[in-house]
């Protein structure tokens, strides 16, 4: 899909992004462009910098060198810009991070009411539509602790979508789930990908990558080792490290 969009400006532009945690360099000169409507899967061993990278895109982590431009806004120390980018970027976390003192409905409507300044009624209508979309409208009045892990993650997806973001970031969304719950979350993500959402997904779910990813990037030691379409990566990986890693995760 990236080929058709080359005349269009990318929605995420990363140029030579570097990031250190004290002396440890987590990202080493990452450059990546993501176009509107693309689904990009990022995978690699733990500690490879893949989570750090997508957390830099909505500035949950600060990069120290290089440029990140999201939807035309450059991420810098200007908190106004950062908040603007975060409004346009939804994020789903490995551990869901729902607000335990709010009901499911309140979790979803909180940001639209407080940040987007929507009237409560509009926010609730949209929240209920989103709950229908992720398949759990009957859970609206419950507290998160009463839901299963898969349901909680679906609420988290609905919460991120409620801000009507242009980009969705997924940070290992199924890693904390039981096998039977992984599917219900992936189904929602596949539906979202098919609806044309721009998505950056850190995951090891290779089935998901095969079926909806436009491009895949293999991270190791803070570098992009290899990138390409799922077909290229799965059938004809160029780098030894990629082959080795794929062999490890695909044999199971």
């Amino acid at each position, binding site marked *: 899909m990236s080929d058709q969009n080359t005349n269009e400006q990318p929605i995420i532009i990363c140029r030579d992004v570097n990031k250190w945690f004290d002396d440890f360099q987590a990202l080493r000169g990452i450059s990546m462009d993501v176009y509107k409507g693309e689904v990009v899967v990022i995978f690699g061993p733990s500690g490879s910098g893949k989570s750090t990278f997508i957390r830099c895109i*909505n500035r*949950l982590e600060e990069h120290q060198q290089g440029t990140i431009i999201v939807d035309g806004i450059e991420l810098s120390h200007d*908190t106004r810009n950062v*908040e*603007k980018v*975060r*409004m346009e*970027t*939804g*994020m789903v*976390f490995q*551990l869901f*991070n*729902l*607000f*335990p*003192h709010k009901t499911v409905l309140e979790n979803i409507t*909180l*940001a639209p009411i*407080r*940040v987007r300044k929507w009237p409560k009624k509009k926010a609730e209508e949209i929240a209920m539509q989103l709950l229908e979309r992720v398949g759990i409208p009957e859970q609206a009045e419950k*507290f*998160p*602790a*009463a839901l299963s892990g898969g349901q909680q993650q679906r609420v*988290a997806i609905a*919460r*991120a979508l409620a*801000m009507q973001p242009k980009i969705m970031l997924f940070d290992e969304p199924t890693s904390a789930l039981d096998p039977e719950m992984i599917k219900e979350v992936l189904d929602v993500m596949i539906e979202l990908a098919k609806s044309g959402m721009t998505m950056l997904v850190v995951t090891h779910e290779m089935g998901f990558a095969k079926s909806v990813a436009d491009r895949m990037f293999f991270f190791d030691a803070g570098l992009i080792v290899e990138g390409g379409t799922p077909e290229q990566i799965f059938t004809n990986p160029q780098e030894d490290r990629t082959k080795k890693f794929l062999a490890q995760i695909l044999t199971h």
Partner: protein
Amino acid sequence: MAITNHSQPPPRPPGPIQWVLKNLFNSWYNTILTIISLGIIGVLLYALIQWILFFADWSPVTEFPLLFMVGQYPRDQLWRVGISVSIISVLMGLSWGIWRGLIQSFAITFGGLLGIVALIPVQMDFLTVEVRLLLLMNVGCILLSYWIGRVIKTSGLYVSIAWAIAILLIVLLILPGLNNFSINISGNEVIILPHVPTTVWGGLMVTILLSAGGIILSFPIGVLLAFGRRSTLPVVKIFSTFFIETIRGVPLITILFMFSLILQVFLPIGSRFDRLLRALIGITIFSAAYMAENIRGGLQAIPLGQEEAAKAVGMNSLQINTLIILPQALRLVIPTIVGQFISLFKDTTLVIILGINELLGIGRSVINTSPEFVQLQLEVYAFIALLFWIISYAMSYSASQLETALGVGKR
């Protein structure tokens, strides 16, 4: 394969009679021990009840009941205190009707205490029919305004505003700052609210004013200091840390002395700073330092993911702290905060050293009024201890009900 195993659930725990038979009378020596223990408890209880009902002389309490309640507050101005109590009754009921579970236990405890006093089946001089009726009227106020609150279903914002106005009203009604509030009626100046200097205030009223004032004022200061100490701004962080550690390193009694003596040195000559107000400020800053550390403990217990999730949906740091972090942190530290409020309530007795006649001070001055009362110290102190216990327990009980209503520990 169908599940065919219909096994029985384990037997339920035994009822009280079985429990007693199994644990207290299961062998001859346990039976003897039980009987001896029951005998000792019975003798002690009998002696205590005998002392309370027949041997103790409660005359210091029954002769000066109003002294214990309000000190030397002018008796013809007592309606001001009464109206303040009624205002609180009405608002308690209203808040109960609108916020339900969150206020319910406080309203019921408050009304219950008033009702119990009103219906004490013992003849007492100060509990005249009028006083009993007034107390019951307050209980009626709570119930009526509860019903109103349920019917009108207004927003909590208005109730909060009503509370703020009510506190202001109470302050105007009973506080001393107001010198002879008067109005002109056809040329004649009529004094409506004569000046009542704080020197004549006393008793339970002062104890409650100091502790309620200390609690209401120290809470927001404590919250600010807790956030201040976690701030990334060096100046704010250093100031908060310095304030907290300094105040916590000093005994309350020292702070009270400091405020009563040293404060006067720094103030311009001739300006008078009310004694009660000085005590209140001392108690407030002392309590705020401890409050800050308690709340900071709660803030630190909130997982980082909560802040990240709130950031990710675009909230600013004020929204993150007030909507996500603080509500969760406060729920966690309710038991600690209530413990602190209870000790603050009891610590108010220390203002006795500033010459303020709070409950304990009144007790001492009653004892000193006559030589025969000196013999009755035990009765006076027992009565004061009972009052402290009732109010402390009511606070603790209400807080545990609040925890249940908030589902603390459950979600």
